[in-house]
């Protein structure tokens, strides 16, 4: 099975979009999950609801909401363009933003479970040994949640690779820029005689999924050792 340059491009775009999406969404998801795991956090309910919005809305609606906010005329998009000359709508960075937003709730759920599984007594022990809040987060909570971080990264990466609705709405279907594998499959199916290409790309997606699963097993084991379990 050989791939055409266009198909290679779709693969490369997918990996780039998913990678950039994780880069911003994973740290935010870690912070959110850590906050949500604290039972006495004020505004916890609101934060939880906000974090889960992309999960309950149709992806097209999320994409449209991103257009309204980050479009060139949207409040955030306008500001970004004026001050930093950054344009997100219909760009690769925009595709990463859309994919990251969609994957965000999935990552938060995996991470929150990991943070909640940590014995709160260890936090008390760390405090009694003189560790402040940031110190405890970096040196106790985060390493102990390492298996959860690994799991969240894999789930998030897979979700980003597969995201369709939000990406095509916010970033369109530009080959070489925002055309990820699912978008390329969609485009192939729209083309007369594109069935063979669609099948090939689908098999490619399947192969990536298998690699990701295998990788997640290895990562999870490493992380378990790191967390001392």
């Amino acid at each position, binding site marked *: 099975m050989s791939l055409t340059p266009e198909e290679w491009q779709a693969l490369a775009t997918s990996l780039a979009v998913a990678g950039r999406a994780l880069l911003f969404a994973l740290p935010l998801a870690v912070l959110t999950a850590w906050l949500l795991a604290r039972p006495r956090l004020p505004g916890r309910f609101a934060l939880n609801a906000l974090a889960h919005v992309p999960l309950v809305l149709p992806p097209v609606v999320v994409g449209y909401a991103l257009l309204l906010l980050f479009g060139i005329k949207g409040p955030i998009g306008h500001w970004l363009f004026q001050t930093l000359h950054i344009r997100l709508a219909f760009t690769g960075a925009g595709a990463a933003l859309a994919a990251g937003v969609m994957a965000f709730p999935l990552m938060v759920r995996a991470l929150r479970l990991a943070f909640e599984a940590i*014995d709160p*007594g*260890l936090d*008390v*022990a*760390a*405090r*009694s*040994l*003189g*560790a*402040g809040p940031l*110190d405890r987060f970096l*040196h*106790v909570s985060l*390493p*102990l949640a*390492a298996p959860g971080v690994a799991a969240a990264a894999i789930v998030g990466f897979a979700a980003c690779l597969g995201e369709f609705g939000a990406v095509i709405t916010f970033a369109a279907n530009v080959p070489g820029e925002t055309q990820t594998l699912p978008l390329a499959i969609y485009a192939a199916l729209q083309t007369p005689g594109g069935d063979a290409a669609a099948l090939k790309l689908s098999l490619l997606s399947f192969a990536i999924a298998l690699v990701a699963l295998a990788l997640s097993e290895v990562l999870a084991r490493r992380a378990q050792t*790191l*967390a*001392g*379990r």
Partner: protein
Amino acid sequence: MLKVEVKKRLGAFTLDAAFEGAEQGITVLFGPSGAGKSSVLAAVAGALKPDAGRIALNGDPLFDSQARIDIPMERRRIGWVFQDARLFPHLSVEGNLRFGLKRAPAGERPIGFDEVIAVLGIGRLLERRPRDLSGGERQRVGLGRALLSQPRLLLMDEPLAALDAPRRHEILPFFEALKTRFGVPVLYVTHSLAEAVRLGDRMVVMRDGKVAAEGPVSEIVLRPDLMPAGAGGQIGAALDGEVAGHEGLLSTIRVGGWDFRVPRLDRRPGAAVRLYVLARDVMLALEPPRRISARNVLEGEITGIESEDRRVLVRVAHAGRELIATLTPDAVEDLGLRSGLKVWAVVKSVAIDGLNGGLLKALED
């Protein structure tokens, strides 16, 4: 010195406790479960905020509801040894030990790493992970970790409760080494009279959220009203003495003006030892008994007689040291015992540290 005065409502339970800790050595917070001991400990550590009160250590306020002072736990510099050790599972034993050490102020680290691992005997465990340690080893590492954080006070919350009897005997000598080697005052929570007697210098008895009594251990254990229900047979005298010498199979322990002869003890002359003499093991005679098998016959004067329902507690003192004997009411009547009378106390057996399981064993039986 630790000064505590805290009030806190916790549901239907009210904590209202005030006491002082010993400047040096171990202060035992003693009482049944639910008496509020652990809540007091948590308040001192900074994990529980009292509704009102004051907590001060060596004159520095840690908490003061009126002055609105509440130093965060991480800046109190109070070490905490937990019942469940709470070692960090992602760090090696050495990583655990150094966790607090790294965070202690650089200029104030009198307690050295090498000394701690030597005293606690944990040198060969340094590379291991906590999950690979036995319960007793975990407790020793937890103690080492707390010590190395260079605390001004060490809190110990039932540190032996999760261990079986052999492990407890294994750990106790390390706790005793705390007093002599590191000089960090300790607040020790327990519901075990045996631990209190063996380790304590000062004792604070808690009941229903209040302090029922406080004072030197040797005084508190003489008071039957303070002892837990069912521990009636364990009332006795805790006597601090020193090894005076060895003679054949016997050692002599000098306690004030009394010399106790006990089976040979493997300690140097001059070493401090604590004896515990159960009240039920003491008989009284009006004349020096002769041709008797008991090795310890001690002269003294009756200083007090108290009647309980079916027994009488008689205190016998000499040179500031006091023994206590339980007798039947008719024995007291027959002998005509009264305060000020000179008597000879016949001691059938003496429980002592470092001998056949020692104090703990005697008190647990």
